[in-house]
């Protein structure tokens, strides 16, 4: 069992800062893509790759690795940046995002980059595939864990609810769903577009164990996710409350940053803000 020391936590915070800077640089190079979601999930992906997952970047096809599925493929920049910062490929490759011939497709493709586990982008499909993997693991007596990261808005898709029912039917306690609860989608607030609340109660009604935490607090997220992972007999969900655009003050909480990248000037400002935040982390040690 690992222990989350304050030194380790500081390292993870610095990593999350690196991940955010990678997101900004890759989006600027791409000239298109999504900003708000990737930034708000930098802490969760850092916690997963840096602490929670059983994985080996040198052996992405390791049979007993934990599986991390990204259902909402449009926030791929955060996954790519986290993977690069945790050793799956060189950080410079992030600058190929969305360009011709890249492994870093606009929405992730497993065939070109196997360690993303699934091809995703069409919403609502990740949990269903995670259910299949988790059931397959149970059938074969494998002990790896399946993590599925979803957006909140993709709970508007029917397939996700089919998967929720099925995970409970098969008592998939080797499956944990993490929801990026940032309350935004392309057309505005989730609660205006198609209300999701009470989201946790909906999972409870589907026989899931429900946890909730600040998804931008790495320590709180790790502590909550570990509790979710240890639930027995039923699947668990972590509602990770996040601030869209987290880490870049002019984007924070503004849904219009859902689906667009920063321009050169905005990127420069974002990187400056992130650098300042980095210095604050170091100063507080």
């Amino acid at each position, binding site marked *: 069992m690992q222990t989350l020391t304050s030194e380790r936590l500081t390292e993870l915070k610095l990593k999350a800062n690196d991940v955010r800077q990678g997101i900004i640089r890759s989006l600027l190079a791409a000239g298109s893509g999504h900003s708000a979601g990737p930034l708000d999930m930098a802490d969760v992906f850092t916690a997963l790759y840096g602490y929670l997952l059983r994985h080996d970047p040198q052996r992405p096809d390791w049979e007993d690795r934990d599986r991390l599925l990204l259902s909402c493929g449009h926030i791929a920049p955060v996954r790519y940046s986290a993977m690069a910062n945790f050793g799956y490929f060189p950080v410079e490759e992030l600058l190929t995002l969305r360009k011709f011939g890249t492994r870093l497709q606009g929405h992730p*493709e*497993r*065939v070109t980059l196997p360690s993303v*586990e*699934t*091809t*995703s*982008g*069409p919403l609502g*499909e990740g949990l*269903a*595939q*995670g*259910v*299949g*993997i*988790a*059931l*397959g*693991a149970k*059938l*074969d007596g*494998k002990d790896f864990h399946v993590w599925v990261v979803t957006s909140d808005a993709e709970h508007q898709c*029917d*397939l996700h609810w*089919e*998967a929720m*029912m*099925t995970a409970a*039917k098969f008592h998939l306690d080797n499956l944990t769903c993490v929801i990026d609860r940032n309350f935004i989608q392309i057309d505005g607030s989730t609660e205006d577009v198609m209300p999701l609340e009470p989201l946790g109660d909906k999972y409870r009604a589907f026989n899931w164990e429900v946890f909730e935490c600040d998804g931008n607090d790495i320590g709180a997220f790790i502590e909550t996710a570990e509790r979710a992972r240890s639930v027995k007999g039923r699947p668990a969900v972590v509602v990770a409350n996040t601030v869209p655009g987290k880490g870049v003050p002019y984007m924070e909480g503004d849904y219009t940053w859902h689906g667009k990248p920063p321009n050169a000037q905005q990127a420069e400002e974002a990187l400056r803000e992130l650098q300042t935040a980095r210095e604050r982390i170091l100063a507080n040690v």
Partner: protein
Amino acid sequence: MYDLVDYRNGDVKMVPTRNGFGEGLVEAGGRDRNVLGICADLSESTRFEAFKKAYPKQYVEIGVSEQLLVAMAGGLASVGKIPWIASYAMFNPGRSWEQVRTIMALNETNVKIAGAHAGVSVGPDGATHQAIEDIAIMRVIPNMTVVVPCDAAQTKKATLALTERWGPVYLRFGREKSAVVTTAATSFEIGKAQTFREGSDVAIVACGILVYNALMAAEKLARDHGIECRVVNNHTIKPMDEEAVVDAARTCGTVVTVEEHQRHAGMGSRVAEILAARQPVPIEFVGVDDRFGQSGDPFELVEYYGMGVDAIVAAARRAQERKK
């Protein structure tokens, strides 16, 4: 030549093609314990029951959720399982097409779809349950294999062959009892069309249960009109046996395609694409003419929608005329 029953003398048994799937799956499940049967609340009508009884640990019931059927199977395939997912073709791949494209084909997963109740010969259930567009929507997807066997015996062989073929596949079959023209000894190979009857006036290229109608039409054409037809069982729609299609067109100089599907965008359209590029000849298309089905007796509907023996005879005579 292929080993066939003595269909000319009416020596045919009537067995639903779906039975062949059920039998093939039991055999496949015994050969490889990674073979799974995943059912969306249609275990009896898709013929899952024998598999469920023989291998209960390889059988998964998920209820009425066809999108999940595909997506969950994608996950299972990614950890080494070989999932056969079965529903009515109208719902899978009809309802689940985007998951089929993304999770099976683009993501290259080893998932096998059994599309039951295809064609108007579903009968009394009516248009909502009669898939006559499924070949079109499946053959257009890269990486997909599409097979429409001619009878129950061939459906069993196709089930086994497709289980062993790595990659996403679509196996299409019907509900109603239909003529069994092949035998246990008739060979079957994915991607290899079969010439069931020789002739050099008109080539009838057919798939599915209508191969029998094509054979009967060929007998009538020979007897009543002196037209000798080559009859090709073109069971693999994708990848299609181009050489067999080109050879039939070259030998006969004209082609009739026969399928229980919309005339547009199905097997016949693929034949036309091949021949337009390599061996242009007149083509007549037998199939449903841009309409939906309705309730009725299965073979009454096949006749009504222009796919009966006489309709094939008429199409072959038109094709013969157009050669001149």
